[in-house]
């Protein structure tokens, strides 16, 4: 049953892939037959408000993005632990719930620290 469901997923994957690719193929075919693409230096230049693009877009970004990503990662991992807990929650003892509360609070502490430290202030 389990592998059967994976097979379904695989079919869905292939279907979605086909759904994504088919129109692109069709468009490509259309272009091949009727509207030959004519790329050229100006047309295929980077758009920048009608001006020639100055400098590169691939510059070094700011670490603020990274900080958010770290906190996100940690909470994502937390969710991985929270979900089994939540599933089992209805049958758990108060002690177990307390343990989870401690788990959550530990992470919240990290969040609060980050908040206080100004990590969550997007400059």
């Amino acid at each position, binding site marked *: 049953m389990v592998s059967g469901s994976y097979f379904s997923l695989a079919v869905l994957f292939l279907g979605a892939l086909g759904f994504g690719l088919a129109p692109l193929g069709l468009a490509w075919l259309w272009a091949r037959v009727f509207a030959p693409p004519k790329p050229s230096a100006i047309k295929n230049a980077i758009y920048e408000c009608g001006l020639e693009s100055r400098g590169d877009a691939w510059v*070094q970004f700011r670490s603020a993005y990274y900080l958010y990503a770290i906190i996100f990662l940690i909470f994502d991992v937390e969710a991985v632990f929270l979900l089994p807990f939540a599933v089992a929650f209805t049958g758990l003892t108060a002690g177990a719930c307390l343990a989870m509360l401690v788990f959550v609070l530990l992470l919240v502490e990290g969040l609060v620290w980050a908040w206080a430290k100004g990590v969550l202030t997007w*400059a």
Partner: protein
Amino acid sequence: MSFTETKAGKFEGWNRPPVIETSDDGELLEVSMGPHHPSTHGVFRMDVALDGERVVKLKPVFGYLHRNHEQIGQTASYLQMMPYTDRLDYFCSLTNNWAYALAVEKLAGQAVPERAEYIRVILAELTRIQNHAAAVGFLAQDLGASGTPLMYAFREREKILDLFESLTGSRMMCNYMRFGGCRVDVSEAWLNAARKVVAGVPRFVDELEALLSSNEILLARCQGMGVLKPDLAVNAGVTGPMLRATGVNYDLRKVDHYGIYDRFQFRVPLGEHGDVYDRYMVRILEIHESVKILEQALKEIPAGPIMDPKAKLRGFKPKPGEAYGRIEAPKGELGFYLISDGGTSPYRYRIRPPSLVNLTILEDMCLGHNVADVVVIFGSVDIVLGEVDR
């Protein structure tokens, strides 16, 4: 001076834009915003350097709509320039007309009949209402509202444009005022239509305010944004709602007593913080005040001629001399400086555009803010490129 320091950084010297220290974290991203950009209100361009999303350098670039207006003014006759003034600030052709007519009347010493003065006031205030409504709508558009406030603003603007069209013949380029009066007379039916439109304005403003004024997103994005200090504003020659939003009480309708504004009871709303929200609110409140003026003017308008009988359309040659006429246009002080050498066309025809001068401190207001805020601050200045570049 109190404004040598801002939230964003420190001013270098007396009245230069602040110098923002860039963090060494991340590189600067140099972006040109404009001339084709959805929210530069035309073909304005800002060369921006971004530190993350924070703007650390901003250089406005003008001239993408420089249509040699002043040069044409030196070759065309005085009358011929009237339709060109329509195309300066193309939202407010009638106030442009008035400013130009005022300057020429000053230059030639012409009188304007009373009825014409009333008509001028009515049209100017209607213009102010539709300009402010559109400005608020565009500001909301810059804030990212998907058109709804702008649609409402234009809904109201269309009503006013209908009035303009039925009087002057054109929706936008009215070419209505003449030296010494106005071109055609208003009919009683028109006045009634105008009364109806004016009566509907407060309801529309309430609607717009319900949509925007207390919206938390708008509050968060506008309050404390692009703060302009009064002394810098004065020094930079900022005029109009932008100046009054900083708290400086300077309204040419009250200061210069031009036209017949002395006869009307109205107040000048003043801001306190000089931020985007104040500019927005001052515009909203000015609409209310304009409605008051309009109600009085529409009630009191006398009968009489609309043109000075001595006025001349063709072959108009003022004596050599010069005059600077200015009015309170919806965007600020609109001045015309004319030098006559006695010929049929001015020797020098100069426009003092409020939009251009109001942009002087764009850099100061924007530095240190987000890209998104730059768009909003820029929108709150309310410029029209036709006037900036001329």
